[in-house]
Structures are given as C-alpha cells and as structure tokens.
C-alpha cells in the first residue's frame, strides 16, 4: 500500500504544480524566463510584474467587471431562485406542477443551444457590451431553483402555518422564516454561482467586445495572445484572478465541496 500512497502523493504534486509554477514565475524577470525556462525557483523575488499588471492591462477594470458580474448574478440569482423555489415548494397556484417540470426540462438543454439566439436577443436589446447584458440572462438558474425547492419541501409545514395564523403575509414568511432556515443551502448555492461566473469564459467572451467590459478570464486570454507577451505579468494576472476563490476555498472549503457532492445525490 505504500506504493499506492506514493503514487497518490505524486499525482497530488502534479495537481498543485501548475499553481506553484504560476506563482513562482510571476516573480521572475522576462530575461530569466527566456534564458532559463526549466528553472522553478526565481533568482530573486521580483515584484515588478505585480506593479506592471495594472498598467499593461486595464486590470483593475477587468477585476471590477468580474466582481460585478459574478457578484451581481449571484446576489440576484439567490433572490429570484429562492422566491421561485419557495413558490414552487409551498404555495399552491394553477400551473405550479407544470412550471416545475419546465424548469427541470431546461436543465437538460445544453447552453450551446441557447447561446446564439440569446446573443441575438441581447444584441437587439442593445445590451451587448453592458453589465445588464452580462447579468440579466444569468439572473436566475434552473439549477438553483431546483436545489432550493428540494430544500423548502423538507421544511415542516407547521412553521409557515403558525406564521399565517399570526397574520403574517407570504412575503414576510419568505423573508423572515424561510430564508434564514435556508442559509446553508443558500451559502452553498452562492459559492457555486460565484465560482461558476467568476471563472466563466465563453459567456463574457460572447457578450462583451470592448476591453473595458471584459471579465478576468477573457481579458487575460486576449492579453496572452498578443505578440510580445510579458510572461511574468501574465502569471501575476492569473495569480491575482485566482486569489479570491483560493482564499474563499481555504476558509470555507465545505461550501465548495457540498455543492458538488450534493448534486450527485440528486
């Protein structure tokens, strides 16, 4: 079994290696990279890449766009998804079952089908290259609705029945009782949404065209495609764009894992 463990550790090193290399390379100079590509450890801790990244690219803007896009879609999606999920789980109205199955069915359709027509719609709305164009189509997710609905179904009916007897309106019940109860599920969903949209490449690539509106993945890719590439700067940009998720992962790992693990139980 020692051989198996050695293999597992070795493979683990392979998993981490690109991140380590990315970080270390960001501290090297361009000449160093060209003359000694095989070297892992930088000769000295050269911080210039982390200074230049802000001027070589509109990096601050890219970072802000990612925050607005990922943060905006997450917050709005949590609100809309939980409202819809609560309605589907608890409130009776005509068409409720039909609506639920429609939501479920949309999960089956791959995003490539809707990408081109949605691009057309966003174009017609004059929302191309804008924040609303990026966020609104993503402002709700069938996956989120499904996940939260499954959660709300498990909440005992006595809770909202008691609240209604006390005279609370549906909105009050949703906001003051249901949402707090759903905090773990909401946290998991929030992490999932934020991670997915922070890392998303194709959607922002399609919707944005000016460098000022690009998000981090798309912006970095375009910079990396130019003729003279400042590799250390590129690696610094990659490191900075990874940092928020990496930090969140270190402190709240279970939320990252939970979202993915529970989808398996579905």
């Amino acid at each position, binding site marked *: 079994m020692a051989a198996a463990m050695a293999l597992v550790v070795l493979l683990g090193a392979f998993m981490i290696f690109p991140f380590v290399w990315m970080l270390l390379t960001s501290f090297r100079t361009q000449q160093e990279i060209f003359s000694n590509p095989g070297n892992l450890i930088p000769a000295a801790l050269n911080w210039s890449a982390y200074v230049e990244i802000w001027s070589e690219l509109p990096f601050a803007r890219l970072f802000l766009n990612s925050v607005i896009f990922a943060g905006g879609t997450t917050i709005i999606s949590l609100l809309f998804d939980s409202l819809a999920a609560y309605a589907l789980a608890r409130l009776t109205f005509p068409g409720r079952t039909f609506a639920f199955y429609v939501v479920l069915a949309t999960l089956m359709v791959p995003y490539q089908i809707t990408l081109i027509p949605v691009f057309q719609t966003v174009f017609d709305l004059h929302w191309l290259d804008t924040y609303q164009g990026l966020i609104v189509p993503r402002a709700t997710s069938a996956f989120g609705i499904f996940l939260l609905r499954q959660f709300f179904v498990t909440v005992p009916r006595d809770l909202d029945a008691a609240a*209604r007897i006390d005279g609370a309106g549906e909105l009050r019940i949703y906001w003051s009782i249901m949402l707090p109860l759903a905090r773990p599920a909401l946290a998991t969903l929030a992490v999932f949404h934020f991670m997915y949209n922070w890392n998303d490449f194709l959607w922002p690539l399609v919707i944005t065209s000016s460098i000022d509106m690009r998000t981090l993945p798309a912006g970095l890719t375009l910079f990396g495609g130019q003729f003279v590439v400042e590799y250390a700067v590129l690696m610094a940009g990659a490191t900075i764009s990874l940092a928020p998720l990496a930090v969140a992962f270190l402190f709240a790992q279970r939320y990252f894992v939970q979202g*993915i693990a529970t989808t398996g139980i579905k």
Partner: protein
Amino acid sequence: MTLVTREGEPRRAARLRSGQLFLLPSAVIICVFVLYPIVQSFWMSLHDWSMFQAVHPFVGMANYAELLGDPRFWNALRNTAIFTVATVPVQVITGLLLAVVLSRASWWAVFLRSVYFFPVISSFATMAIVWRFLLSADVGPTASWLRAAGLVPIDFLHTTAWALPAIVLVSLWKNIGFTMVILVAALQDVPEYLNEAAVLDGANAFQRFVNVTVPSIRHALLFTSVIAVIASLQVFDQVYVMTRGGPLFHTETLVTYMYEQGFSEFRSGYAAAIAWVLFLLIMLVSLIQLRLFRYSDVD
C-alpha cells in the same frame, strides 16, 4: 394582510397572487432567455441566418444536409469523440481509486482531497493560459526538462500528433478532483458493516473493492460518468485558449467549430444546426449510458 382559514392556510386568492408573483422574476427570465431561445435556435437552424442581415431565407434542412457533407464537421465530431473516450474512463477510474484511498477522516486524507479538488475551483481559461506556457517549447519548462532527461523536446501544442493528448491531459488535471469529490461523498455513505461482513467472509482488498465497494456506489458512479461524458462532449475553454482548434484542425471540437461559425463567420443558422446535432448526440449517449446501466443492475 391575508385572512387565514382555520388550518392556518391563507385565503386562496392571496395564495394565488403570492405564488405567481414570487415565480414571476425567474419565470420571465427563463421564458425570455431560455425557453424562447430554444425555439428560436431550432428556427434559426432552418434558415440561412446571418445576424447582420435583415432577410433570412428559409432553407429547411439544408444546413443539416450541409453538415453531413462538411468534412470539418466530421473532423470536429471525431476529435470530440476521441477526446471523450480518452478522458472519461481515465477520469472516472482515477477518481474512484483516489476516492477509495482518500475517503477517510485523517488529516492527510482531507489535505490531499483539497489538493486534488483545487484545480476544480480555478478558471479553466486562465489555467489553460498557464498550461499553454508550461507546454510551450520556446519559453516553457517542459522542453528543457525533456532535454535534460535525454529525450527529444516536443512542442506539444503545435505538433499535430501531440496537441489532442495534451488537451486530454490538461482536462484530466482539471476534472479528476470533481469526480473524486462526488465518489468520496458516496463512499462515506456506505455502511461499514458491508465491508466488515466481507472481511469476515475472507475477502481480500481487491475482492472487497469489486464486490462490495463498487456496487454500493454504483448510482454515484453512473451519475459521475454521465456528467463527465456530457461535459466532454461540450469541451471548449481549454481548446480555444490553448490551440484555437489547431494545429491544422487537429483539436477542433464541436463547440469550437460552432463558436467559429457563429461568432467569426456569423453563420448563425449553421452554428445553430451544429448545436442541435450536439444536443442530439448528448441525449443519445446519455440514454445509452443509462440503458446499459439498467441492464447491469440486476438485483
């Protein structure tokens, strides 16, 4: 304020209003940006549709007929199939073995699980930039390491024979942790007495693995396989960033071809047809997988 009935249920009218109101924001967005586009997409695929033209002539199934005769489409399909077959079994089996070894609660198992999961949380497009750099023959380390080991340095991403294998490797790097996490969760739900009974019956580790472990997590195994296949058929980010479908279309996949047709050539109708063929393929393969599983599930 709503009046309540004896059972604590709100008046019917109020309930109706709330339910539909709550559902409204999501319903509107799903209708406008999911349901209508699905219909629109199929409609587009029946036309010679270019986004910037006012008139879109109806062509019936001509786009699909053109696809059948398009060598670039078949090349993309073949590459996508090869990629899927090369990636999924390795990903699932490796994920399974890792899950078996690492599903305990000890600190090193938890640490290693985090290590394996870390690539999953990163942006694939961004890490593909890093990988492109790593594999580069000019400025990347792999070339000099191969030389140091006495081997011929290879420019992986620009060599037709090595480009797709390189993409496969990077995809495995990214996704094995995902499979592992799902299977660890499944393994942790397996009751201990099953294994203990097998040990009492004299089964060795391998026999326990085959006859107890694998069957008890077969649902999670099926789920993770289906997900992995669907994701592989949709591969895009790493291909676009690392090779753009090159060299010489050796890594062009269905979605990169679709993207190029839709957003470089602006042939929206043709791109939509590619998307529908992809959808059909995904449905077909998923159904086959589920069917095969049902036949083997004889309990």
